[in-house]
């Protein structure tokens, strides 16, 4: 009898916890959707902000966000893969590798505003790149590199041993095995990790506010400055310039991030079947 009651209570608490989680998520999403949906229109997406109250659209900020995200990915992907291959396949597993991993994990938990400040000092000022897509992408890569590196390393380690043996057994060298068997086999999971971290880059505010600038601008070269969606949203809301447009931007951001997450899931699922 008492066992049953304990059981019922435990189950009830689990239910409540789950319900709270869903409710919180639902409230946030619902709030943004209700307030932002009225703003969404092709005009809002594809035109420039106008006048002091930033009427009109948010097009240059979307481009800035996607630009910096893409640039960060181009910088991160090769470095993360090479570093992960080294850690997973070549480095003698021991204290040094443990230290590198610990450093990477610590780097991943540095508050992003600190990384923004660092980007400002190093790239914008010391290196003289100025407020630009490149400065922002470099600072973002510092933030994301450890995450992508760890997911890549895990993807590489997840490739079964006996597949590697098959390759070695045919007289493949270590590099041939890594490049022709292990990396292609790990690629779906590596790409999924990269796409997921892309969502993180799209939503990042503190890093880019210090490195990209705030001027509304349609970036063409990596040295152009711009204003990403997150910063646009921040300015519109904090200074009470245009709250409806702020919600519209927030909704667009959420859709973008959701799109990246769904894309990653779709990609992984499709490649599992092969």
């Amino acid at each position, binding site marked *: 009898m008492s066992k049953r009651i304990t059981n019922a209570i435990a189950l009830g608490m689990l239910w409540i916890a789950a319900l709270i989680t869903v409710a919180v998520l639902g409230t946030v999403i619902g709030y943004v959707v209700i307030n932002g949906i009225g703003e969404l229109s092709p005009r809002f997406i594809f035109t420039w902000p106008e006048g002091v109250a930033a009427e009109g659209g948010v097009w240059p900020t979307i481009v800035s966000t996607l630009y910096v995200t893409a640039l960060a990915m181009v910088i991160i992907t090769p470095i993360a893969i090479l570093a992960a291959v080294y850690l997973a396949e070549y480095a003698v597993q021991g204290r040094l590798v443990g230290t590198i991993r610990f450093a990477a994990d610590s780097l991943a938990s540095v508050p992003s505003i600190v990384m923004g400040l660092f980007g400002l000092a190093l790239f914008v000022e010391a290196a003289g790149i100025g407020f630009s897509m490149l400065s922002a992408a470099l600072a973002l890569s510092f933030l994301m590199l450890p995450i992508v590196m760890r997911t890549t390393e895990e993807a590489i380690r997840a490739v*079964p041993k*006996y*597949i590697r*043996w*098959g*390759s*070695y*057994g*045919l*007289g*493949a*060298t270590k590099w*041939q095995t890594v490049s*022709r*068997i292990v990396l*292609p*086999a790990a690629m779906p999971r590596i790409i999924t990790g990269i796409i997921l971290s892309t969502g993180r880059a799209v939503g990042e505010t503190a890093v880019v506010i210090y490195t990209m600038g705030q001027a509304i601008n349609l970036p063409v070269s990596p040295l152009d400055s711009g204003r990403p969606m997150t910063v646009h949203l921040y300015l519109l809301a904090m200074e009470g310039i245009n709250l409806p447009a702020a919600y519209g931007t927030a909704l667009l951001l959420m859709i973008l991030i959701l799109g990246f997450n769904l894309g990653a899931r779709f990609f992984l699922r499709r490649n599992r079947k*092969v």
Partner: protein
Amino acid sequence: MALRATPVPDNAPNKITVKELDFFYGDFHALTDITVDIKEKAVTAFIGPSGCGKSTFLRCFNRMNDLIPGARAEGLVSLDGQDIFETGVDPVDLRRRIGMIFQQPNPFPMSIYDNVAFGPRLQGVSKKAELDEIVQHSLERANLWKEVKDILGRGGLTLSGGQQQRLCIARVLAVEPEVMLMDEPCSAIDPTSVQKIEDLMAELKDRITIIIVTHNMQQAARVSDFTAFFLQEVAGDPAILVEYDRTSNLFTSPKDRRTEDYITGRFG
């Protein structure tokens, strides 16, 4: 049980010679004092209870144990008279000459064609016509061609377990090895494929030397010319080679009491 009709002659040359081999995993002494001659162009079976070091011994021949940290061999293993542990020997070259089939079929996550072409491509074969021919020929020798000739572009992992194992055999044959090591190749697959693998072994041994580890004594008796029986008598002690003889002798009149106990215990 049909024993082999044309026995390998007594004066057949030795392909592999093992003298006083000891093997260690770190502090664990896995094998001791193994001495055996493996005849060329014959099938040799390794039998014995699980955990007695058959796989370990097999992996010495192509130095796959080099991949295991802390693993170490002492003694002599020679291939065609050449000591394979000598510093001048590149394990990568050795593995081209000595192919290996594993218990778990392990096709690469790529097409059937690419699986078979993998080895030749490593060696620099890149002409389409040449690769096509190697792929077809290898699949034919592995008794798989008829089943896959129209689906060569399909993923190797979409095949059944038994087909996957034959694909792995084709993949090894594509590099024209002199020796093929098979570690319980039939323990995880369907009976039809087992039959096909036993058939292909009989065909292949005209040209290559085969060593097969098997749990199935009927299989050892059916496919092999020579049999080696391994045993770890006391847990924690290294395993030894108890008896090595022509398969027909070993199964009908074992010289060692322990061999007899093992084969009768399992045959009943």
